């Protein structure tokens, strides 16, 4: 979990920079500025809840963030993740949000990672491989974690991925 939280924190930092940059550049209206700010705030709350493992509550926050700002790729991605954590019944909906996240930002590495894992869980290995190949171009270390999931055919327990296991004993 901690690894995913770290990823989320990095995403958040990027997001803040992006939002700040785009707001400054576009000189957007007060209203949309507030909307983006509120969306970011809700998103952050969602990330905190994810860190605590409260995926249901996190899901609410990401949904609310998207109500304020529908084109929020990171929020779609994390909503997809929290949905996926709700169990198989939510896989289809999770997939839609990963797809939307990547439609909004085709370079969002974490979304290829999460979607790849979902493809493995759905037994769709070839699609998982395609996401891995794309991810390898964006972030090799993250791709290595997805490779582990694809090759094992199972999601690692606890903090996922090969990199997390590479700690000096």
């Amino acid at each position, binding site marked *: 979990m901690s690894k995913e939280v770290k990823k989320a924190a990095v995403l958040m930092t990027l997001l803040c920079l992006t939002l700040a940059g785009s707001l400054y550049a576009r000189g957007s209206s007060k209203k949309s500025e507030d909307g983006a700010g509120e969306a970011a705030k809700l998103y952050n709350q969602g990330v905190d809840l994810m860190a605590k493992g409260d995926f249901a509550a996190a899901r609410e926050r990401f949904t609310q963030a998207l109500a304020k700002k529908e084109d929020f790729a990171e929020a779609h991605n994390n909503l997809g993740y929290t949905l996926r954590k709700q169990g198989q019944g939510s896989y289809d909906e999770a997939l839609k949000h990963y797809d939307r996240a990547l439609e909004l930002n085709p370079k969002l590495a974490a979304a290829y990672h999460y979607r790849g894992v979902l493809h493995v869980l759905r037994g769709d290995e070839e699609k998982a491989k*395609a996401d*891995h190949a794309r991810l390898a171009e964006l972030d090799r*270390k993250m791709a290595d974690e997805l*490779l*582990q999931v694809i*090759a*094992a055919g*199972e999601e690692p327990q606890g903090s996922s991925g090969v990199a997390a296991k*590479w700690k000096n004993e």
Partner: protein
Amino acid sequence: MRPVIPGAGLALSLALGLSPVAAAPPPPPFEWRLPPGFPVPGVPAGNPMTAAKVELGRHLFYDRRLSLDGSYSCASCHRQALAFTDGRPRALGATGQLHPRSAMSLANVAYEPALGWDDPGLRRLEEQARVPMLNRHPVEMGLKGKERTVLVRLRADPRSARLFAAAFPGVRNPFSLSRVAQALASFERTLLSGDSAFDRWLYDRDADALSDSQQRGMRLFFSARLGCSGCHGGFNLSGPTVHAGSPAAPLFHNTGLYDLDGRGAYPAANPGLRRFTRRAADMGRFRAPTLRNIALTAPYMHDGSVATLSEVIDLYARGGRTASPLKSPRLTGFRLPPEQKRDLLAFLDGLTDETLVTDPRFAAPAR
């Protein structure tokens, strides 16, 4: 290839008030020919990749003049057919001295965060290349004290003189051991191995590239129960990897091969990481090598003390050869019925890259 703009160099040199001859055109950007999914290797700023340097490096790699009696080259211990290993338990130097450790594969060496089995500080191929040339304990290539003689010989040989001039344009006297090491390092960085059945299964999305048995073996290899990928993971099936813009520190593990005194002692010649850190806890810790081409690189372990992959698997299934107190907690052992062991071995066979061992770009140049 970057498009060539005729006259651009001339315009620049005129603008700078230089004669047109003084402006050497910059070398074209290096074409890595990376296997699918492979990142661009990191390259030290002082030794940029060029095709000419790689070509010189290839010639030097196979050049027996780089040894005390003209009998040994880098390729003596790093044979292409064996994924750049030597097939021996421990490497044999030019004077017949045995090295304490086994010659490591050079496949994908560009991505290793440290070089050799146990040295955490040996990070660059440019530095590593000097070790076998100059080492005296044991003697490997035995060049120590003969450097000048060899460099003079290389300069006198029209063919190597031409290769050095092309590799180091504008350098008045490129015949130095540092330049030799730079060229060797450049060549070694091109020894990329990413065309195994496993890669074709993964990147070509060829579900049949691995047999059913190999795919079952792959599941076992990457399973939490066996835990092989815990130390041999990622795209290089090794420990942590480095590449351009992505640093990493090497990891070292004690696999419990020896416990001479009940406190985890290893034979004096091979204390592992402790040789460098002097820390008691680092006794017997060695770097996990890549498992790419592992079927070609027998015998196994840092000292070649395990003859076959089958025995390696048995050893890990038992949780290690000894009950050393310094053994990695990862080595808990596992039960592996014979059919599963066959599957795991089949998967390891699927990591062999026939392209690497036959690619003429990596072979000895025609004399």
